[in-house]
């Protein structure tokens, strides 16, 4: 008996097949399946193919429940680059896959927690829109933390 499969479409219009019982780990997909049976292709306009491939790899994992936590941790550890992790976290957020999102966010937090301000900005590509005066005001307000 063949299991029912779903087709997911990434932002760049690539198609990915996945067995339905695995795909419904995503609450978003589960709700779609419930609503209309999701016979057609499910478009994921914010997830690129590279990230979707990772998500599918994650959904296809076959771990015993007691090893699952370690697996998820290892899974994100192996993709330790911040941009990849952010993409993964965003995809997990859109698809509502809590475990994956938690693990990816935790990993990003772990990576940036010992960074200097400049390093944080660089790693996450953020423009510094603060004036030195504003910065000083915050440093003064929270003296104990600096």
């Amino acid at each position, binding site marked *: 008996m063949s299991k029912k499969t779903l087709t997911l479409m990434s932002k760049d*219009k*690539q198609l990915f097949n*996945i067995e339905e019982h695995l795909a419904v780990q995503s609450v978003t997909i589960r709700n779609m399946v419930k609503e209309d049976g999701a016979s057609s292709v499910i478009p994921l306009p914010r997830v690129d193919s590279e990230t979707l491939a990772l998500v599918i790899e994650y959904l*296809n994992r076959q771990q015993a429940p007691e090893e699952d936590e370690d697996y998820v941790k290892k899974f994100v550890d192996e993709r330790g680059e911040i941009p990849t992790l952010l993409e993964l976290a965003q995809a997990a957020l859109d698809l509502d896959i809590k475990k994956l999102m938690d693990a990816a966010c935790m990993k990003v937090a772990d990576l940036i927690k010992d960074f200097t301000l400049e390093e944080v900005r660089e790693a996450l*590509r*953020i423009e510094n829109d*603060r004036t030195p005066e504003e910065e000083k005001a915050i440093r003064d307000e929270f003296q*104990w933390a600096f």
Partner: protein
Amino acid sequence: MKLNHRRPPAISDHTPIGLKSARQTSPEAKTPADFSSRTLTTTTGPVLVFFYLKKIKPNFVWFRTLIDPSMEDLPAELTIDILSRLPVKTIIHCKLVCKKWRNLVLDSLFVNLHLSRSPIGLIIKHYPFMYRTNYWIFPSYPGTMKWVQIEDKVDCDRLLSLNLNLPAILQNASIIHMGSVNGLICLWRTIPALNLDNICICNPVTRECMILPGQRFQRDGFAEAAYGFGLSSVTGEYKVVRTLQAKVVQNGHKPAWPSVIEAEVYTLGTCEWRNLGPVPVTYYWLNNALHQFCGTFLNNHFHWIVCDSKDTRDEIATFDLDKETFQMFPSPPESVQGKRCHGQSLAILKGCLCKLGTYHFELTIWVMKEYGIKNSWHKEVVITPEICVDLKWPLFEPMDLIVGLKDGSILMVFENKFCVFDPRSQTIEETKMFKPQSRGLAYRPSFLKFQNFGSEMVYMF
């Protein structure tokens, strides 16, 4: 500028390991996004992309994030999630990263998420000098307050402590901490010389502090106050309750035991104490140990160790935060038959109420497995000189039971020591890290702002 790095062309034959499902390339794969990432690698690419982008939004940051998504690109929800997992100090540093982050840290979504993840720590309050009268023990100066961060497991060598300077308005007062909820600390401030007696609520992380108005019943002569600070899970209100027991002279005769107990309640945000009238019970608060005046908060109730009117045995009294009523509560059987208990305290261990008692040569922890069920009191821990030779036997001082850690060990503060008891190996590890006369209190740091408390006067420190 590095363009297109870490981003292979969208159409790729690369199949990640473990990918089992079939992949197909759809015929209409050439999309604008794909177009940009491919053409950028050619010499004409940047020009084309420039015009392409200009049509939409000629913004440098936007342009960059198209190539490599960053936090700018991420939904606030995700940024909040990541920030909420960082240590408190790092979060404060992150306020400097950009304006958006600063605002996110103030967002109530962030505050609540952070609170739910904030690891438990300790507030250590050091009383530099205590003077003892027949009826009361006073710290003579405000003392210092330190915050000790604890990871999931206590590694005594890697404890991080930092000084939390007390607000200037508390500098010349005697300060006793009376409880902590959601990162807010309830402090009892007294300045006997100025006849000042107030409760202060402060959040050492956001540096906000408010001083509650004086109660209607003031301490006068021989009277003792007991406090509780908690959060109602029903109404979401923060409340402070104070009971004041006094010996009222009748017929020129002062009774041996307190003859009247009055109770007052303060709901944060209302700016006034409400009088609950006389408490219809016949117990009283023991008057020789500071921490017994600080109610342990669990299950919407405060719990205090009290004495019956003949001083024959200890009982537990509770105050229901929502109904605002007092009641007696089942207490554990006598710990050590026929032996005098030197100090006792209540605490919460793995969500259960527990009672800790120190005797001459024994320290016991009783745990109430099912809340409110007398038979569920269970003697969980017994520490004797055989288990821990180094503890200063015989024990006379009470011990503060702080918190049960994830690995099952129990954290306590005893005099100037930090003790971690491991129930599996039945061993106790001690670290001398405080000055004598220190007291500990479980504390979970938060970014909770006082703006929710309406018209209360808030001081920054």
